[in-house]
């Protein structure tokens, strides 16, 4: 009798303890809401993704994605704190809880997806070709037709040569150490075209209007997505929802405005009626 009473008391204690332990495992979502602002990891050295304006403010497409999430959380895009991190620090800062979320032009790969949970992609990056507006070659077809007669400037990389040859099999490839040098090569005529990320190209063309043009061909697709810590489905769902509605729903205007600012292109508003994502 006494023993069963003891067991019953123990069971009761266990049950009453359970909600408390469930409380301890609460989602990052509750933690962020209680804190009152979002902490996002990002960089500060890559235009147009995350870089400093002339008055030393962080800006760019990644920054705007963070503000969209902050707005979904607090109805105030300003309630966000940025943690500056190098590209190498993207995954460690997520797994060690230094940040709630990282949006830093992170390419989705299977290997990374084993370490962090990726949100839905918010941009599809690819390599493009930029030509001089008044140059010898009109577009991608002309470059390809010229065969080994064209020189392409690219950023130094182990796979730079094969990357260019995927689009222009015979082109000569000149590799340079830094971004300004690949553009300089085109400007000075040492190269006929620049091959690099399309986002960088469109940003550069926007900074130097009417001097360059896009060759109209893109390859090497890769998805950019934000990352959160694994094992917190609630938080992942929330960020996914915020990004999804920015691309298709109530926040479309802020997404489109940011897209226009950083990539110079106007977006068609999502079709009304049947949801675009099932087309």
């Amino acid at each position, binding site marked *: 009798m006494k023993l069963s009473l003891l067991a019953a008391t123990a069971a009761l204690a266990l049950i009453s303890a359970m909600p408390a332990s469930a409380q301890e495992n609460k989602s990052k979502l509750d933690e962020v809401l209680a804190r009152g602002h979002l902490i996002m990891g990002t960089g500060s050295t890559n235009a147009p993704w995350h870089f400093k304006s002339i008055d*030393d403010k962080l800006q760019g497409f990644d920054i705007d994605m963070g503000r969209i999430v902050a707005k979904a959380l607090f109805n105030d895009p300003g309630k966000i704190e940025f943690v500056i991190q190098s590209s*190498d620090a993207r995954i460690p800062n997520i797994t060690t809880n230094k940040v709630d979320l990282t949006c830093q032009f992170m390419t989705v790969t299977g290997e990374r997806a084993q370490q962090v949970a990726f949100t839905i992609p918010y941009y599809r990056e690819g390599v493009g070709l930029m030509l001089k507006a008044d140059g010898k070659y009109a577009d991608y077809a002309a470059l390809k037709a010229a065969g080994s007669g064209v020189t392409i400037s690219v950023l130094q990389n182990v796979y730079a040569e094969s990357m260019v040859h995927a689009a222009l099999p015979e082109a000569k490839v000149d590799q340079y150490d830094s971004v*300004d040098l690949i553009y300089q090569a085109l400007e000075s005529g040492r190269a006929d075209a620049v091959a690099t990320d399309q986002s960088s190209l469109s940003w550069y063309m926007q900074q130097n209007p009417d001097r360059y043009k896009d060759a109209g061909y893109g390859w090497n697709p890769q998805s950019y997505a934000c990352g959160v810590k694994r094992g917190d489905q609630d938080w992942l769902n929330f960020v996914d929802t915020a990004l999804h509605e920015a691309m298709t729903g109530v926040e479309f205007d802020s997404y489109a405005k940011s897209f226009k600012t950083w990539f110079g292109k106007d977006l068609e508003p999502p079709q009304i009626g049947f949801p675009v994502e099932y087309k």
Partner: protein
Amino acid sequence: MDIAAFLHVLWLARMPILKGVGVTISISALAIVVGTLVGVGVGLVLTYGKGPLRWLVRGYTDFIRGTPVLVLVLASYYVLGTVGVDLGPFEAGVFALAVFCSSHVGEIVRGALQSIPRGQTEAAKAIGLTFPQTFAYVLGPQALRQMLPAWVNTAAEMVKASTLLSIIGVGELLLRTQELISRTFMSLEFYLFAGLLYFVINYGIERFGRYIERKTSVPS
């Protein structure tokens, strides 16, 4: 390189650069001051300590001196967080540099003290000085002269090592420079300028070291 265009961009970017210089100097100064204070203690234990305490400090110096500064920086930012000491990037960086500095200063102090002939200590004992007095009036001043050049060298190393803090997102001069390059696409110009600023800072330290050396030199 268009000098006039660069000077214009540089003028517009003066605030971020000054902030970067300020952060670089604060990191270095904190690391050098804390590292030197701890390092003198380390050096004293290495020279006069006995038994387990000395073995412990010996292990600390050898371990820290044998580790790359970058590893120390990353460890103090990430590993300390997992054991409950969650430092911000600035604090973690200063901590790592101070620890690194202390191990070097410790060895410098030990070397300087051990280079003083035993006769000095014996003479001090003979005239009845206690150990603290011996250290303050006999050994300390002589060791100071010995260690100054090496200490200036370590201090300059700290300024250079502070660039590693850009990895964990501290807005020091190098990261500020990279931020400016990403906006202006003037990499060569800005890296040269940053190099010049680092040289100026280190030259300042070197002159300061020389000044102290002059002040403490034996009048001849």
